[in-house]
C-alpha cells in the first residue's frame, strides 16, 4: 500500500523506532525566538551541554519587540532583558541571530520561508504553535514547548509519537474576493477547535492547488487553531517557482537533485488517510469570527448566533460566555458590528501579497473617523518591499499607522495592545479572551475584510464600499 505525503516525510526522518516508544525524529531546521528559548538555554548550561547543530538553528526577535522606535533601546526593561538574553545565548552557543535592526529580522515564520530555509520534505520545529505555517512547502512543521526546544538544541532530534493522517480536500475554486483566510476560518468553524487533534493534515484539492505560496502559508498557519499536530500541502511547480530565487535555496546541481526528490513528495494514489473532510470552495464567502475561539465563526453576511442555535450543552454555554465577553447580542447582523481598531499583520497575513491586497482596497479611500488601522509587516524585507512599491504611502494617505516588523498586536505582548472593551478586526489567528490586550475583543478576518472594515468602521467586505 502506498504512503501519504506526511508518512513519507516522517519516515525519512526516523532516527530510531522501537515498539511502545515514540519515534526519535531528526529535525532539519530549528527556529528560535526570545520568548520560549531562555529557559532552554539555561537548561543546557546547567547540564553542561552544547547546541549539537547550530548550523541547523536560526533565531530572530519577533514576539516582544516594539514596532516603533526599533532603533532605540526597548523601553520596557523586562522585555529588554528577554531580548538581550536571546542575544547573549546566541552569542554563547554560536547560533545565527537576526536581531532588531537587522534586514532579515521579522516574524520567525515569515523569515524562514523568505530566506529559502523552509523547503519541501523537511522537519521544522520552533517554540511557537504557528510553526505549522511552514507546512505550506510540504514540510512537517509544528510548535513545541520549551523543554522540547532544549531537547532539540541538545540532540537535534525529538521524540514524537506518530500522528494519524487526515486529508482536507477542498474542491472547486474560491470565488473572487474570497481568500485562503476565509477558507481556513470556514474549515475551523466546521471542525471546531479540537477537530484536528492527533492528526497531521494534508490540504489538497483544486482550491488548494490554485493558492499562491503565501496563501498556502495562511492556510497551514491556522492548522493549530483546529488542533492539528501539523498541516501540509504537497510541493508543486508553485512551490519550486517560489523557492528558485531564494537566498538559501539549493543552487545548480543541488537544485536539480533537490527538485527531483521534492517531486516524489506526493501522497500515493493507493494511500489511505485515517480521516477525510471534503469542502467546496465555490460556496465559500467572506468569513469572520464572532466569539472567543477560532471555531466560533460565521459568514460575514450572517447574523450573530445565540445559544439556541447549538445542540451541545457545552456549545450553548460557550456561546453565552463568548457573547457576554464580546459584548454582542444574538441576532445582530455581523455587518452592523462597530470596530475600533483594525490590525493587518501577523504570521497569518503579514506578507507582501497581504499588504498589496490591503493597499489595493485602501487606495483612494480613508480610514473611518473613529477607527484606527495598524499595518505591521511580517518582516523587515516585507516592509522594504512594500515601501519600494509605494504601499506605505497608500496606507499613510488613508490614515493608517505604518509600523516596523514583528508579532505586534497578534498577541499583545509588546505595547501594541487593545484597551479593555476595545473591539478589533484582525488578520491574525486567535480571538481568545484578552489575546490582543486585557479585555480586548477580537474578530478574526481576511485582509480584504480588514481593509473594508477600516474604511466603513463596521465589519465589511470590499463589496460594501463605494467606487472610488
Amino acid at each position, binding site marked *: 500500500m502506498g504512503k501519504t505525503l506526511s508518512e513519507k516525510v516522517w519516515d525519512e526522518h526516523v532516527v*530510531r523506532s522501537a515498539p511502545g516508544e515514540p519515534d526519535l525524529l531528526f529535525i532539519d531546521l530549528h527556529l528560535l525566538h526570545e520568548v520560549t528559548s531562555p529557559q532552554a538555554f539555561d537548561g543546557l548550561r546547567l547540564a553542561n551541554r552544547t547546541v549539537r547543530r*547550530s548550523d541547523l538553528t536560526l533565531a530572530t526577535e519577533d514576539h516582544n519587540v516594539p514596532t516603533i522606535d526599533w532603533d532605540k533601546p526597548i523601553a520596557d526593561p523586562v522585555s529588554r532583558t528577554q531580548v538581550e538574553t536571546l542575544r547573549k545565548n546566541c552569542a554563547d552557543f554560536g547560533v545565527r541571530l537576526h536581531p532588531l535592526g537587522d534586514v532579515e529580522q521579522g516574524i520567525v515564520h515569515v523569515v524562514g520561508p523568505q530566506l529559502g530555509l523552509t523547503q519541501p520534505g523537511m522537519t521544522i520545529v520552533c517554540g511557537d504553535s504557528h510553526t505549522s505555517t511552514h507546512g505550506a512547502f510540504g514540510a512537517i512543521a509544528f510548535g513545541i514547548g520549551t523543554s522540547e526546544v532544549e531537547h532539540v538544541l541538545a*540532540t537535534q532530534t525529538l521524540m514524537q509519537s506518530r500522528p494519524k493522517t487526515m486529508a482536507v480536500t477542498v474542491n472547486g475554486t474560491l470565488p473572487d474576493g474570497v481568500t485562503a483566510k476565509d477558507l481556513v476560518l470556514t474549515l475551523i468553524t466546521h471542525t471546531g477547535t479540537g477537530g484536528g487533534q492527533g492528526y497531521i493534515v494534508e490540504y489538497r484539492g483544486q482550491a488548494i492547488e490554485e493558492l499562491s505560496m503565501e496563501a498556502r502559508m495562511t492556510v497551514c498557519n491556522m492548522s493549530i487553531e483546529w488542533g492539528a499536530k501539523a498541516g501540509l500541502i504537497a510541493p508543486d511547480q508553485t512551490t519550486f517557482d517560489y523557492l528558485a530565487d531564494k537566498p538559501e535555496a539549493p543552487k545548480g546541481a543541488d537544485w536539480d537533485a533537490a527538485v527531483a526528490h521534492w517531486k516524489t513528495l506526493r501522497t500515493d494514489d493507493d494511500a489511505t488517510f485515517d480521516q477525510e473532510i471534503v469542502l467546496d470552495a465555490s460556496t465559500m464567502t467572506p468569513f469572520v469570527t464572532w466569539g472567543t475561539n477560532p471555531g466560533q465563526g460565521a459568514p460575514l453576511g450572517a447574523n450573530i448566533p445565540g445559544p439556541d442555535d447549538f445542540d451541545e450543552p457545552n456549545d450553548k454555554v460557550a456561546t453565552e460566555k463568548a457573547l457576554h465577553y464580546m459584548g454582542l447580542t444574538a441576532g445582530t447582523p455581523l455587518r452592523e458590528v462597530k470596530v475600533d481598531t483594525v490590525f493587518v499583520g501577523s504570521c497569518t497575513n503579514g506578507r507582501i501579497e497581504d499588504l498589496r491586497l490591503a493597499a489595493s482596497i485602501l487606495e483612494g479611500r480613508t480610514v473611518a473617523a473613529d477607527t484606527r488601522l495598524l499595518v505591521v509587516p511580517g518582516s523587515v524585507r516585507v516592509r522594504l518591499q512594500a515601501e519600494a512599491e509605494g504601499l506605505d504611502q497608500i496606507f499613510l494617505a488613508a490614515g493608517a499607522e505604518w509600523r516596523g516588523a514583528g508579532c505586534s498586536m497578534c498577541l499583545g505582548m509588546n505595547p501594541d495592545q487593545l484597551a479593555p472593551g476595545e473591539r478589533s478586526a484582525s488578520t491574525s489567528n486567535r480571538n481568545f479572551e484578552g489575546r490582543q490586550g486585557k479585555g480586548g475583543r477580537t474578530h478574526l478576518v481576511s485582509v480584504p475584510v480588514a481593509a473594508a472594515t477600516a474604511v466603513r468602521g463596521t465589519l465589511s467586505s470590499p463589496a460594501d464600499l463605494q467606487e472610488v
Partner: protein
Amino acid sequence: MDAFTTHTGVGVPLKRSNVDTDQIIPAVYLKRVTRTGFEDGLFAAWRGDPDFVLNDPTYADGSVLVAGPDFGTGSSREHAVWALQNYGFKVVISSRFADIFRGNSGKAGLLAAQVDEKVVQSLWDWLEDHPGGVITVDLESRTIRAGAGEDAVEDSFDIDDYTRWRLLEGLDDIGITLGHDDRITAFEASRPAWKPVTA
C-alpha cells in the same frame, strides 16, 4: 524531574471548555527568563473576579484542577504548565487536552489525566457536594478517586505508556536520547548534501 507516583490534593472545579493557554497565562506575563514566578499570571484575567474559583478560600490549597474539554489549546507556551505548577497544581483532569499542552505537561512533570467527559461531570458534582474535598490520582494504577461510600467517584484515566513510565521514573528525556548518540550521528551522515544550513 521529580518522580510522580500518586498525589492526593484538594480538587478545584474549572467549569469551562476551551481554556486556551492565553487564558492560563496571558502573553504579557511571558517575559521572565526563568521557569519560576509565573503563578501571578495564572488565569490572570479571571483572578480579578471575586467569584472566580481560585479566589474562594475553600480551594486555597488546590492542587488537582478539574477542567472542561479542550484544555490548553492555542499557543505552545510551556509557561502555561509552569504557571499551573508554580501556583501549586500537580494534576489537571480533563476530557480532552490540546496536543502541545499535553506534551509540555509530560516534559515538565505536571500530570495531564484524560478521562471520559462523564467523569469530569461526576467530579464537578462531587466537589459541589464536598467543597474542599480531596482527589487522589494514582499514576501506577491510572485511577482517580474522590470520596468514599455511595457518592464516591472512582474511575480510570488515560495517559500514554511512555509518558507514564517517564513520570513514574522521573527521567530526563535528553539523557535518554543522548544514549542513542551513535544512531543520531549515523543519521546525520546519511542526510543529502543539498539540505539547507543556517551557518
